[in-house]
């Protein structure tokens, strides 16, 4: 194998499954993250056009960020109180707690020249601030705009998936604080199952637009090789500020990528077979 660290031997991959259909926009994850990781306020700035979102983005000081998307009809609102329409409008006020994706093909990791970014025993991508020299190569290498350099010390910073808590057997602070389990933490394979079941449940309830972003994709559609922190969405990815397609920009790993694609293809075939079985049961 090359130096690329898609997997670490003996690792059990841990991840996040963030279900936007149960997010209530309370931002407890943002605060819990900052408290545990001792991150400062990012400045109190009123942002226009962003609904109730005033932190705006993931950056060196904000490692969880709740995006608010108001999906009421644009154009001329009817000057009347239509209770049904008002309720529908509230239904489409959607929230997404965004976070580092801990990609399988992690662009930041591929670009890091110092080894500050590592793949951990939990198959997460962690930045070691004491090794980082602040070169900033990881920043354009992240297709999601997650990694950022701190404005004071110049070093890069991002979500560690609470590496220090995981070492002590604790779940990450954001998942712990989430009152609705919109943020679920656990072994990656289990989360994949939970998420697939959740999509099935939502489809059964008529939420036809529910889908997973960054998981259970066909090999050619995989986002950065599959996301360690993946999402359940009900709107196109762009409405949440996510790219429809993404991968590590580093092209030197074509061969291992192919190998992993074959493996993923086998998985996907199993998934297709399972879905046929499932549909026959319906």
């Amino acid at each position, binding site marked *: 194998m090359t130096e690329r660290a898609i997997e670490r031997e003996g690792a059990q991959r841990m991840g996040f499954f963030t279900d936007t259909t149960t997010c209530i926009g309370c931002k407890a994850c943002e605060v819990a993250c900052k408290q545990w990781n001792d991150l400062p306020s990012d400045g109190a700035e009123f942002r*226009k056009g962003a609904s109730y979102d005033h932190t705006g983005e993931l950056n060196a000081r904000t490692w969880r960020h709740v995006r608010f998307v108001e999906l009421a009809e644009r154009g001329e*609102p009817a000057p009347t109180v239509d209770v049904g329409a008002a309720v529908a409008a509230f239904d489409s006020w959607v929230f997404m707690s965004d976070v580092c994706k801990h990609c399988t093909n992690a662009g930041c990791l591929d670009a890091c020249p110092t080894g500050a970014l590592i793949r951990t025993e939990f198959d997460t991508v962690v930045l070691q601030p004491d090794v980082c020299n602040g070169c900033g190569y990881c920043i354009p290498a992240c297709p999601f705009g997650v990694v950022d350099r701190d404005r004071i010390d110049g070093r890069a910073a991002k979500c560690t998936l609470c590496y220090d808590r995981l070492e002590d057997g604790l779940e990450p602070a954001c998942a712990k604080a989430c009152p609705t389990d919109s943020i679920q933490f656990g072994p990656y394979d289990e989360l994949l199952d939970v998420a697939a079941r959740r999509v099935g449940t939502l489809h059964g309830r008529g939420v036809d637009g529910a889908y997973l972003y960054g998981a259970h994709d066909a090999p050619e559609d995989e986002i950065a090789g599959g996301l360690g922190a993946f999402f359940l969405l009900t709107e196109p990815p762009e409405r949440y500020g996510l790219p429809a397609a993404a991968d590590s920009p580093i092209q030197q790993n074509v061969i291992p990528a192919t190998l992993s694609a074959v493996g993923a293809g086998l998985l996907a075939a199993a998934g297709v077979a399972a879905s046929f079985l499932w549909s026959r049961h319906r």
Partner: protein
Amino acid sequence: MLRAFDGGLDGLFAMGQNPAVGSEHSGLQRRALSHLKWLVVRDLAEIETATFWKDGPEVRSGELRTEDIATEVFLMPAASYVEKEGCFTNTERLLQWRDKALDPPGDCRSELWFMDELYKRVRAHYAGSERERDWPIVNLKWDYEGAEDVLREINGYTVADGEPVPGFAQLESDGSTACGCWIYSGVFAGGVNQARRREPGDLSAPGGWVAPEWGWAWPANRRALYSRASADPDGRPWSERKRYVWWDEGERRWTGYDVPDFPVDKRPDYEGPDDAQGMDAISGGDPFIMQADGRGWLFSPSGLLDGPLPTHYEPLESPVGNALYPEIAENPAALRWDRPDNPHADPGDPSWPCVATTFRLTEHHTAGGMSRWLPWLAELQPEMFAEIDPVLARERGIEDGSWMTIASPRGEIEARAKVTDRIRPLRLGERIVHQVGLPWHWGFGGPHPGDSANDLDMLAGDPNVSIQESKAFVCQVRAGRRATGPGVLAGVHAPPPGVAPNRDHPAERRPHR
């Protein structure tokens, strides 16, 4: 506060309260504070109630001058909830004891410490007095060493030996027992702080979800009131799946997962004699034992100052009349203070074409005393804003994110505009009325100040428990920031001549107009 404004109140303790921005018609509240001789504020931060005399809107506008305000303000640093022990009592009647996690920093102290110290110093001041009026102060029983001593006294005890009583049924009216509050009697049963129990329910056991050993519920650790209603007239559960309290014929008593809220040995088929009195007159099939007839009441002929049945009135301030009762627009029993410094608009007054409502945000707590000073919360909702619909925004030339001014008959505030389709205009008869949504978490103090929505609402209360009417009042909006300088704050004039009537309690209410 009106008594303070009119000169009938010398001093005030504001403990965990911030009336300068957190109470309705807060401009009037601040003016009332400025008429006090002394004011004690205990809080986590230097909140607006402690600083109104130097940086309140009236001082900034020049209407009040700091050198004219004689109020002596004492700001005392308070311990936070993790820095003190005590009880929370929730609306479900559950008492939960909380231990102190760490000592408060510096001079911060709990309310209990403060009140204890205050009384001891007052008593020392009165020591040796033989005046009859000082007797209660000199002789008050006051010997607490900790918060549990207070709970123990609330529980009640036998005077002879000081032992806690098991419950209110053991209280006597002959002076042999003492009790702070009968409904809490039993919280210290057996000398154990029952509210401190943290035994979760066993969800695998039938009825385990009741969790009777988690904290303690008043009265008598009953988790549900009138629970005899969970059984049919014969005492059998209405539903096996939802069984809760039922009659055990073998044991000849009521039993269940909870402490039954019914005389435990009264048979389901019990009928009292015709001349029965009190509880004896309530049959075995009537669960509502605190009602005179034991029945649930939809029609309540007594107890409420309005009613007995629900109806519709417009808010005290409304852009329209009452379509249901055109001759009576507003609740005639409402508690209101009709005086020049608490003005309100008449129905349909064209000066005030919009309606405002106040609401809370997840990120802040009440008037912001516990949240605006915290950088992690302040960055999530950094500035006061007003939510308006896009039609109103276009009509008034207000852009999303820009400054706008909201005025009511009581005052004027500025806020950032949040133009959103979530706010809908209302069609009221032939008129289109626009709504303005105002979070009320901001004030003029602290690191993230903003105008207070309570500068706009009026002093008014519901007839029974005086809940303020801050959810509906009329307003006008325009683009841009509010004016500054003297004379711009509306609504407060000299107090009316003579002594103002005491209208703080419904029983003392002056007849409506």
